[in-house]
């Protein structure tokens, strides 16, 4: 059954239709990849789904509830979490603090003014667990701003994981990572399959075809094909519009 159901979603920047009457169904438990050329509107779609950007029309139902009109924090609390294509972390915090902050967001009230949060064993333990998953546990006490690019990408993923989402929207998690780092992140995503529903946007086709249960192809704000990796690879429209050029 559908965990995420998008109907008739639209968004324009001036005359440019970035999302054009888009429908999308994401089944509970699957890894659903979205591919498309640069500027196809993939990041914009994620922004609309997560509530970062508004939409001109359409409906976004998540776990049976309408998300349209709800602000980003409310959608995260409902169980939809995301990562950013351009790394977005808290650079002055330590790596552990970055993740612990995300844990804190979904465990108990944050309107607590006296108990020292640095000594909150529960938060730190959960944060370390998420960090271990992406292989950053030994960097826990480092200032996040001084991590390497690849490590920041891993931290970005750990933060998203730490919110315990039912649906994870990942916007090019491999962007700019080296071979070994990318390998590691692909492993992490493979490990996540089955535990959490994933929408993965990625230009790395090897990773996409290795990981995805289903693939949707987005071109000029429209989904032109959806299916298993093999079906999509064979689809003539896709070959013409996208893979052919690539």
């Amino acid at each position, binding site marked *: 059954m559908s965990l995420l159901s998008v109907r008739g979603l639209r968004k324009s920047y001036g005359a440019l239709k970035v999302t054009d009457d888009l429908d999308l169904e994401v089944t509970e438990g699957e890894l659903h990849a979205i591919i498309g050329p640069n500027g196809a509107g993939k990041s914009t779609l994620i922004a609309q789904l997560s509530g970062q950007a508004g939409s001109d029309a359409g409906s976004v139902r998540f776990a049976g509830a309408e998300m349209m009109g709800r602000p980003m924090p409310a959608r995260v609390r409902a169980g939809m979490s995301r990562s950013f294509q351009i790394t977005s972390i808290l650079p002055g915090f330590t790596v552990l603090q970055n993740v612990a902050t*995300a844990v804190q967001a979904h465990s108990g009230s944050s309107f607590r003014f006296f108990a*020292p949060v640095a000594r909150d064993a529960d938060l730190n333990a959960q944060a370390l667990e998420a960090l271990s998953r992406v292989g950053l546990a030994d960097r826990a006490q480092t200032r996040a701003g001084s991590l390497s690019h690849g490590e920041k990408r891993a931290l970005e993923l750990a933060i998203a994981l730490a919110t315990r989402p039912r649906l994870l929207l990942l916007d090019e998690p491999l962007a700019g990572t080296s071979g070994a780092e990318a390998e590691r992140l692909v492993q992490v995503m493979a490990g996540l399959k089955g535990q959490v529903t994933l929408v993965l946007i990625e230009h790395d086709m090897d990773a996409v075809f290795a990981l995805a249960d289903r693939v949707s192809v987005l071109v000029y704000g429209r989904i032109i094909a959806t299916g298993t990796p093999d079906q999509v690879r064979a689809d003539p429209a896709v070959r013409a519009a996208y893979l052919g050029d690539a």
Partner: protein
Amino acid sequence: MTRWLMRRRVAAWLIFGGFAALPLIAALTGDPYLVVVATRILAFAMAALALDLILGYGGMVSFGHAAYLGIGAYAVAILSRAGITDLGAHLGAAVIAGAAFALVTGAISLRTRGIYFIMITLAFAQMAYFFFVSLSAYGGDDGVTLTTRSTVLGQDWLADDRVLYYAALAMLLGLYLLCVAITGSRFGRVLTGARENPLRMQAVGFTPFRFQLTAFVISGAMTAIAGVILANQASFVSPSYMNWHRSGELVVMVVLGGIGNLLGAIAGATLALLLEEWLALFTEHWRLIFGTLLILVVLFSRDGLTGLFKGRGK
């Protein structure tokens, strides 16, 4: 991080120990004026501390914090006029009034960012200023002289300058410890995170506005307490407490001592007021020198004052 906390603890002992010993020094040197000046310093240190909470940790550059000094001071004047002289009542009224003003103006100001926020907080402070200027029942522009200081348990203990001084010191210590707790708490972490990267905080499920507004209200209430002390020290209350220059001086104090580490605000307030007193010994136009120094330091330190005194902590 822990080493940083240890250093801060040592510095705190030194600063508060120094303040505690000051009346003794004053008695030895036979200079009672020292205690009077020091009480003023303590009051401004409270206000600077409160401002650092939102500026240093929350990233909100409020350019209207003098309004809360005035609100606290007028709480004393108005209640005293009505025959209520109790310090507890004065503090309670100041805190409630300061918090209420911060809640309303903060809720509006926090809808904006950057330059807008700076201008709007300044404008609201000016509104409070004009309100009291036209409040002729309390002297308007000229203000009111207080006939007595606040009383404690019906006693006029605070009439003694040294008692007032130690009362102010106790309050500063209490507020400092409160701020240390807040900034190290769950709440403090969200507040700091929202300064670092509000989008990231939203993307993990926080609504920064709520935390920023709460911090703004706490800060306003704390500054109003400073106003109560200031009114008692001067035995005089007027709209000049809310002059926008005063708001500017508060920002200078916070930045001078280093933003975002609480003790810096106390040190900055001390430094700025001493510099003022000292320059005023030489010329009535001390602002010329003070202003020039300010410009030069901002221009010629690599990242401005903020970089000259780096000491950020979480």
